[in-house]
């Protein structure tokens, strides 16, 4: 995405000579950062509108209009912070396709809340992948927090049930549930998630406090399908954007927010446990433009 702005200066001379191809190239540049064509042309329409209305011929103004449009899309109407229940334990359910960084994100989240003096329990409901439990256990030991797990291939619903019950008994503030990676197109595995959600709701007698979809920033247009299908099954409350230390900056979240109105809540940007922060639309957009 950083390239986007560099190239914007580069193609600027076209703005005067060949306006149409300037817009075309701008659209192309946006698509290169994995923003979908629909979103890109929507943003561009607004910018064009402004440029013609105000008779703009200044690169900085075009840039800032572009920025403003993106910030406008990413901005959250309500609170973008995580929802903490007044009746602990608060429960976060973490889901996503394979290999996006669910387990690492959970370790980072747990670390963040533990530092704030919260009592955290992590629930190893990925009973499918080899060594998933051991990976989580490693983090639980480092962080010195509770973890609930069952045997391999056991029912994830039962793990979740146990986790919430234990959290209640021990006066835990926050339960974070790790689930197995699954493709959004897998009917059976999506049903399994619905069941897990039901188990939690019954145990805490309210909706799950956060259902967070983990999205890999290197993913292209398919991330939108992921968000849509997971949202249809579970009603997502937000997105964790991972691996933003890569060269991809995750432009697809702009499309996700624009099309589905699912807020981006957190981003992770490194291998260390501290490399997680709340999502800030202005900073995210500035990063694109830096």
């Amino acid at each position, binding site marked *: 995405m950083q390239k986007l702005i560099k190239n914007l200066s580069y193609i600027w001379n076209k703005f005067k000579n060949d306006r149409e191809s300037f817009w075309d190239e701008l659209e*192309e540049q946006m*698509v*290169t*950062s*994995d923003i*979908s*064509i629909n979103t890109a042309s929507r943003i561009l329409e607004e910018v064009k509108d402004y440029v013609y209305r105000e008779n703009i011929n200044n690169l900085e103004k075009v840039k800032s209009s572009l920025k403003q449009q993106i910030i406008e899309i990413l901005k959250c109407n309500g609170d973008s912070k995580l929802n903490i229940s007044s009746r602990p334990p608060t429960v976060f359910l973490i889901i996503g*396709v*394979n*290999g*996006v*960084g669910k387990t690492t994100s959970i370790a980072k989240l747990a670390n963040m809340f533990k530092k704030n003096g919260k009592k955290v329990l992590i629930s190893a409901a990925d009973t*499918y*992948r*080899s*060594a*998933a439990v*051991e*990976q989580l*256990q*490693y*983090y639980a030991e480092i962080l010195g927090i509770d973890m609930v797990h069952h045997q391999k291939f056991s029912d994830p619903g039962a793990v979740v049930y146990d986790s919430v019950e234990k959290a209640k008994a021990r006066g835990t503030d926050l339960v974070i549930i790790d689930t197995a990676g699954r*493709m*959004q*197109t*897998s*009917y*059976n595995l999506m049903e399994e998630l619905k069941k897990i959600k039901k188990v939690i709701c019954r145990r805490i007698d309210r909706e799950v406090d956060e259902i967070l979809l983990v999205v*890999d920033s*290197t*993913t*292209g*247009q*398919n*991330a939108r*399908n992921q968000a849509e299908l997971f949202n249809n099954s579970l009603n997502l409350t937000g997105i964790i954007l991972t*691996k933003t*230390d*890569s*060269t*991809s900056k995750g*432009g*697809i979240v702009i499309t996700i927010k624009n099309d589905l109105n699912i807020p981006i809540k957190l981003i992770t940007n490194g*291998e260390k446990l501290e490399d997680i922060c709340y999502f800030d639309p202005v900073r995210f957009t500035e990063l694109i433009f830096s």
Partner: protein
Amino acid sequence: MFELLTAKFEDLFYKIRNKGKLSPNDLDSALREIKLALLEADVNFKVVKEFIENVKAKATGEKILESLTPYQHVVKIVNEEIIRVLGSSSGGINFASRDPTIIMTVGLHGSGKTSSVIKLANFLKTKYQKKVSVVAADVYRPAAVLQLEDMAKNIDVDVYSENNSDPVSISVRGVELFKKSGSDVIIIDTAGRLHIDENMMDEIANIRNKTTPHQIYLVLDAMTGQEAVNIASSFNLRVECDGIILTKLDSDTRGGAALSVYYVVKKPVKFVSNGEKIEDFDIFYPDRIASRILGKGDILTLIEKAEEVVSEKEAKRIEEKIYRNELNFEDFVAQIRSLKKMGSIDKIFSMMPIVNKSKIFKKVNLDDSHLSHIEAIINSMTVDERRKPHIINGSRKKRIAKGSGNSVSEVNKLLEQFSKTKQMLKQFSGLKGKFKLPPGNF
């Protein structure tokens, strides 16, 4: 995989097909649709540009506008272009002239290296009868070695690992050990790394220098966006990859990354990984994928899969029974079981040459549990009932429904479907083809 791109082309060609002749405007709007479809499929925008140029040049050169069959013509050109972009030869492995063949896999975090290593090991073991061993060189991710060892146990493959050592030394010692112990293939599983992390990229360059692998595969997530080309270029620059293992093709990704990578980096996709099971791994065939994109189905793969689970003899026996109208529920359940062995229903369905598949997809519930229901109903029948379905009366139906946890109407539905299928199969029995799918069941 590639479903949405296929759907786009299907819709597009459906429009063109109904016209006798193609106007210049038609061609332009077709090309625009193709361009959008490819961009939405994550094909790199540079590749898209050239792709469209080439199709247009060819379409003009071949005087497509004057053709009376413009539809076939456009399909042919797009088909050829896709195959060209994907590389015209099929994938697979090149073994070293002398054993052992050393393979190294590299890639980003979470691209699916460890699963691919195990699937590849299993593939080489079962298809080529090779003795395969694996070296665990991911010392960074917690429990990565454990994951590899656990999965390797299932397919009976040896793993070399060390505690508190560096990946380069582990790789060197592992390869030495397996060379001595007579392995035919040694696969080194490296840690996930960012292609811009200099230190980590140095590490794989070092492993490569010290172990001189015959094949280096980049493991690439099929859902990767526009960056795929840069990722592949960076890895290729540092360790010179021989090819790509494309993973997670069981998602609904349009998989444009595959098209881009070959085009820009000139490295072919060798293997594809498309499911949770160890067997969900195959050689990459560009022509099959291209015909799939064009909505012609992947009938070759389907036939191969069918041949793997149904023996020639069994197929003949069934065919004769169909011919003599003697097909019964025992055969039916056997067919369902072999169908299940071929993979999930939606996967099989996606390989079938059906026009406007995307529209049918929306209406049909491609749920494997439906087959299990049918199986349960049949399992609740007595042997006599299975062999002579006509004896099933009202009270028998009630008993079967109860025994299988279904309603009587569901039992009725199955009986009705069965007799229809029987009739249809009789009509088809003259046709060639060994695998008869019970139609109308999903």
